[in-house]
């Protein structure tokens, strides 16, 4: 990976993390207040994020031959099958239990919420068991 690509990746991640913190999504209580029907905020965060992403994903491949630092424009892999249904359903259960999903679990550490290390550890173990079972 070139230095420039690494720097761009780091900067993009920082913007993502800043957005997660600014929107207070790194606070599990705020996410739970959405899931429990007390504050619609998360829908605005999602809507804003999707709108910008949609513009970028649809327009950039038409305006540019390739990304500014080379390579090619990727596509988000997505298919509907039994695993997607089961996985999404389980993910929702885990998310609903804590109000913590992967992005905020990682970003929240930067704002000093070290309790989230428990969630990060849980997610890493969950991903390990998933991959382990997929091999059988």
């Amino acid at each position, binding site marked *: 990976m070139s230095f420039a690509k690494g720097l761009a990746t780091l900067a993009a991640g920082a913007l993502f993390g800043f*957005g997660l913190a600014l929107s207070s999504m790194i606070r599990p209580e705020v996410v739970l207040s959405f899931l429990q029907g007390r504050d619609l905020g998360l829908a605005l965060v999602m809507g804003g994020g999707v709108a910008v992403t949609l513009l970028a994903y649809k327009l950039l491949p038409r305006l540019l031959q390739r990304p500014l630092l080379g390579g090619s424009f990727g596509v988000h892999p997505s298919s509907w099958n039994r695993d997607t249904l089961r*996985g999404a359903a389980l*993910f929702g259960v885990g998310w609903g239990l804590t109000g913590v999903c992967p992005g905020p679990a990682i970003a929240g550490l930067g704002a000093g919420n070290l309790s989230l290390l428990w969630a990060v550890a849980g997610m890493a173990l969950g991903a390990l068991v998933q991959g382990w079972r997929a091999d059988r």
Partner: protein
Amino acid sequence: MSILQTPFPVGWQHYLLGGLCLGAGVALLFLFTGRIGSMSTVFSSTWSYVVRRPFFQQARLVDTRGWRLLYALGLILGALAWWLWRGAGVAEGTQVPWWLLLAGGFVAGYGARLGNGCTSGHGICGLGSLQWPSALAVLTFMATAFITANLVTRWIV
């Protein structure tokens, strides 16, 4: 019915701004590198450094593990920048107990990897690509999250 009267009891601007900002992060990553900035894959790809089993040695994990870790580091730095910008006051915390974070994290991590995406993968990136399987996945996890948060978590936290 109070959510209909006051949908945003603590204000709405920071939600929208934050959403636009994290979308800009995904857009920037795509503009410069063409990469899709979803998050949960890093929890599988990082295992490829130490676990030799075939699943973890797939090219789609091994070839992306470097930048995914860097992207995750960026997330931490971005939230740190926000915290410093806010005056570096009290560190963030949560009332959710550690055992619930661990258990819920496990289920969320397992599910996100089995279903190939989380709130950023299916939510931001999948919906941003107008992919109907992602839209179905979002509806599915929103539904189970609503049910769980109201039937279980409400009584613990």
